[in-house]
């Protein structure tokens, strides 16, 4: 896996488009546009008639695929073994640092200010008072060394510690019979997981990697780390958590990736 070539992946966005070329050729682009608009208006009427059936067809295919994906969510929930543990590894297998991943480049990362950071709570929770980082650090800590698997196909072994999400949910008086635990992040990423996965013994609200506080690129100060989901189901830079029966989807899920995405 050492030879990694550039792939046209959504998970690895390229740099923003270089605007200088457009600016240099502004006049040329405009003149082409004007000619095209004239021609385009003539053929537009004919085109809509031709593609009408095609577009409907494509919509119905999308509906079928979406329905199958939702069916796959249910199939995966049935396959899920709540007490089956993911394989764990020895500390010498741990990759340091972990692999960066977001819907933007690492250069565009906006670090979270630990002094003003709070974890807000919402939904079916008894005690919704927000948590400071100090309070989170004082919670009992659990460590897992598990394989991170990305939906793209790459993986690495990571060493994560933090409070067990089950312990935290019990501590704040969350309704453990609710369907979802949803997260919002400082970078506007969002996601949600099913309650059985949230209560799995290898699901943490992680604050440390390889024994040290998680660094900015990897979700400082707080991120989800669960051994039973694909990588993108582990929101980083978490700022809010909600326990709910309402489906909240997620950033990639709303773009067509399977919601359950259990491994």
């Amino acid at each position, binding site marked *: 896996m050492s030879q*990694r070539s550039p792939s046209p*992946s*959504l998970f690895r966005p390229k740099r923003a488009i270089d605007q200088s070329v457009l600016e240099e050729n502004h006049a040329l682009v405009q003149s082409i546009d004007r000619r095209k608009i004239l021609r385009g208006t003539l053929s537009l009427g004919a085109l809509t008639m031709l593609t009408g059936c095609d577009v409907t067809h494509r919509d119905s295919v999308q509906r079928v695929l979406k329905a*199958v994906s939702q069916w796959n969510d249910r199939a995966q929930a049935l396959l899920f073994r709540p007490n089956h543990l993911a394989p764990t590894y020895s500390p010498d297998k741990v990759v340091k640092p972990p692999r960066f991943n977001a819907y933007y480049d690492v250069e565009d990362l906006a670090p979270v200010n630990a002094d003003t950071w709070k974890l807000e709570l919402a939904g079916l929770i008894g005690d919704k008072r927000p948590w400071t980082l100090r309070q989170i650090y004082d919670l009992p800590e659990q460590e897992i060394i598990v394989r991170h698997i990305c939906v*793209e196909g790459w993986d690495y072994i990571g060493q994560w510690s933090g409070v067990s999400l089950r312990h935290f949910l019990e501590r704040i008086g969350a309704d453990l019979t609710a369907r979802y635990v949803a997260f919002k992040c400082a970078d506007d990423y969002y996601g949600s997981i099913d309650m059985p996965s949230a209560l799995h013994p290898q699901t943490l609200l992680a604050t440390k990697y390889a024994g040290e506080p998680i660094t900015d690129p990897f979700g400082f100060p707080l991120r989800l780390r669960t051994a039973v989901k694909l990588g993108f189901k582990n929101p980083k830079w978490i700022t809010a958590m909600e326990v709910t029966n309402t489906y909240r989807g997620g950033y990639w899920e709303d773009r067509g990736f*399977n919601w359950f995405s259990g491994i």
Partner: protein
Amino acid sequence: MADINVKSNGRHLARLHPLAIRVMHWINALTMIVLIMSGWAIYNDEVIFGWLHFPSWMTMGGGPEGALQWHFLAMWILVANGIAYLAYGFSTGRFRRKLLPIRIAEIIAEMRRALALELAHDDLTHYNAVQRVLYVGIILVVILQVISGLVIWKPVQFSELAILFYDFQGARLVHFLGMVAIVGFLLLHVALALIVPKTLVAMITGGPDVPRDATASAEPDPNQPGKLAS
């Protein structure tokens, strides 16, 4: 079973490819193409070999999210159709009649004839040794694809199975190599069907009538090995 004819002499006859086989064959063909093409799009998202990307016109589903949707739709059809096919093949004795026995000496002899372009096709109802090996082999490869695919999909839930492939990347590699084997089979299979078009026609119309209990066809005449063209 509209394919069963009772001839005047009272012997029960069936078509070479009963309707059930034809339906399952074409469902499988379509499903395989969807799985292969969407699989190539999924592969492209994180290539195993740096030198190998599949051109986008060869892939299906657009980006990885669409390709995964297609792959996870087709996998259910493949598995359901495959279970039906295996149940049919074993329960009707079709596998025993058509695919067994497999003898090394026959395979070598058939390979020689194939390379000398001396293969006979006048009898579609009999599979030669090379055909039998390939058909049994491709069934086993597809079963391996299902198992390795299950491990890639659920490496934690099926962690006991994952051990068979060493680790997650091992399962990916096996799944890739299984695809290579299937594509190789597909190219050969389609090429041969086009060279001998009546085999293709038989998979659509059902082909010639064969005796219902055609156990004899499993044992080729020893005086006429491989049914050489005269």
